[in-house]
């Protein structure tokens, strides 16, 4: 059993295998559906542009408008602020990277400093306009801060790969896996997979901390006896894609099954670390999933013991139920 993380775009077991299967780049390798433009980020980008253009083109007019000095050094300051705004606008509209939102927050603080200094040394002419501009910037700072904080909690990509060898032909292993509705028999986190029309399936899985996530998936590649690839469609909470490949093992040793799963996990690295702390190590789970698949293929069902009687539902590795027969109540729970 081997599972490991691989860098994004990795997941090829070996170059030799890749060349043996030239069409091995599944559609799932691309960005999954579910990335849509963020209205707030783009709105702030346009706001930067709307502010930056007059600052750069007509700094004198702009300064008069907000009631601050019109001396050349004042105009030069405003023009530089305009350049800053246009840079932020380009960044926000171009990449939506939250670093540009943080740049806006920093710019806001700089502006508040300039305006505060201006208010303190004001000649009282147009003081109300300067005060109003200061209040407006303070309000925008709040919006920028909100956007920067919320947009920084990005989903991070998690790649999982694992492999197992089963003692059947690639066709038989493929046929077993292709019955997507039976995946929950051995995949611990999957509660249900059912057809959802138009060639898609609806998936329901339990997530860390007792939550559950659902999504629709479509098959992106399906080569009998060789490969199945799928990806989530629409705007799921956890966009994901996956691929399973079936290779004849050398010397008649059956079939090697190589699985790659990619998730875009909410909460970023922190979320992953917290989940791991609570014993939900995804690598271990994928390994265990594949062991159960092997048990089903080779022996007909998932093997149970007194210590681990719940089949795939056993979440906790140790301590377990003692290695002694189950009570009537426990038996009913196991059989339900």
């Amino acid at each position, binding site marked *: 059993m081997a599972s490991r993380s691989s860098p994004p775009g990795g997941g090829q077991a070996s170059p030799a295998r890749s060349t043996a299967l030239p069409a091995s780049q599944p559609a799932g390798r691309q960005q999954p559906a579910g990335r849509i433009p963020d209205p707030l980020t783009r709105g702030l980008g346009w706001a930067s542009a709307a502010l930056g253009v007059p600052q750069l083109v007509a700094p004198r007019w702009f300064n008069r408008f907000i009631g601050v000095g019109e001396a050349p050094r004042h105009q030069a300051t405003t023009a530089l602020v305009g350049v800053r705004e246009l840079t932020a606008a380009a960044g926000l509209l171009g990449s939506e990277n939250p670093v540009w939102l943080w740049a806006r927050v920093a710019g806001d603080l700089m502006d508040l400093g300039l305006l505060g200094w201006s208010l303190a040394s004001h000649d009282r002419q147009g003081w109300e306009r300067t005060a109003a501009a200061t209040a407006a910037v303070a309000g925008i700072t709040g919006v920028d801060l909100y956007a920067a904080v919320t947009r920084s909690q990005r989903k991070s990509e998690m790649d999982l790969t694992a492999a197992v060898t089963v003692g059947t032909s690639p066709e038989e292993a493929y046929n077993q896996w292709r019955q997507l509705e039976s995946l929950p028999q051995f995949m611990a986190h999957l509660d249900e997979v059912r057809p959802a029309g138009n060639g898609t399936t609806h998936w329901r899985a339990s997530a860390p901390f007792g939550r559950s996530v659902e999504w629709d998936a479509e098959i992106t590649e399906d080569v009998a006896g060789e490969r199945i690839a799928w990806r989530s469609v629409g705007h799921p909470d956890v966009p994901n894609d996956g691929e399973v490949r079936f290779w004849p093992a050398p010397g008649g040793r059956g079939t090697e099954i190589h699985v790659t799963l990619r998730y875009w996990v909410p909460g970023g690295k922190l979320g992953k670390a917290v989940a791991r702390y609570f014993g939900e190590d995804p690598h271990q789970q994928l390994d265990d999933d594949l062991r159960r698949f092997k048990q089903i293929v080779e022996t007909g069902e998932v*093997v149970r013991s007194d210590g681990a009687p719940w089949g795939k539902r056993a979440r906790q590795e140790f301590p*377990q139920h*003692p290695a002694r027969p189950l009570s009537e109540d426990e038996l009913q729970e196991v059989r339900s």
Partner: protein
Amino acid sequence: MKANCWMGRNTVAVQDVPDPAILNRRDAIVKITSTAICGSDLHLLDGYVPTMQKGDVMGHEFMGEVIEVGDGVDSGKVRVGDRVVVPFPIACGACAACRMELYSVCENTNPNAGLAEKFFGHPTAGIFGYSHLTGGFAGGQAQYARVPFADVNPLKIESDLADEQVLFLSDILPTGFMGADMCDISSGDVVAVWGAGPVGQFAMDSARLLGADTIIAIDKEPYRLQMAAEQGYIPVNFEDVDVRSQLLELTGGRGPDKCIDAVGMEATHGSLPVYAYDRAKQATRAESDRPYALRQAIMSCRNGGVVSVIGVYGGFVDKFPAGAWMNRGLTLRTGQCHVQHYMKPLLDHIEKGRLDPTRVITHTMPLTQAPRGYDLFKHKKDNCEKVVLKP
């Protein structure tokens, strides 16, 4: 039902527990007629095998009558009413390991494979009553047991041999035999066996059966050495002599051709300072196993010889003589016994009178006295060699 349970380090107790039930379609329920305490149960008792839990049912040597079978059991192989001996490793019969008859490393029967993998690198098979590392299966020191893959594992006994004659087919007789089998014994071979407990005795009997010329028994308990001597084996008491020198003396300076370690992780040593050194390291978890027998076997074996390890090791050892092993071209062969591979031929040896497993039994008592049996066996009181329990 009554079952003997592990209740913490150095404590077992006979308790009332629920009767076992079918959990998988190919399970059977066996009403146990005879069961035994194994030397490896002492490693569990002493707390040297990790992942034991309070309340675990002990025991992996048992036999009895099939009283229920799951609806997936092949009725051509086993039926209700059959009298069966149950091998201690649980095998699926279908994976690559089982097809190679390496049943104790079956790939499918350990539901805690992920846990086992962390300890051993790769998981091993499920074993009855032998920690959660080997699956968390309830054991056979009980009135009933659930036996998975009932159409693969149990050996049907169709002759009228007594329980005592066939019970040890479940573990210690095949284990001892595999120890000798791995030695590739040829005529003229001198075979030295560390440990004259039940497994060691059966390894010696098997070595003789496989054609060894001279068999040497190494132990410190006079009654165990006496038991070996009565069979014609040469006793060496490691508390009285230096083992390596004595073995050279007995083999014309060559060293034994084949060496069998039937001791494992809780060995003792004739030299108190050496014993204290490893005992202290083990107590502080600086090493998990005390490998005196293994060290001596490697140092004593003749150049190019075979060291066969059937004594149980659990973790990591210190001062492993890798230099002697490598430079002198020794072959190290090991494994938990692939019992299913050996059961039928050994039953034949028993039926033909070539092996008499009953010779190691010194105590027979009711299951309810299991804690007393453990005490006698562990502390070698009352010349205890092997305890059979009757549920």
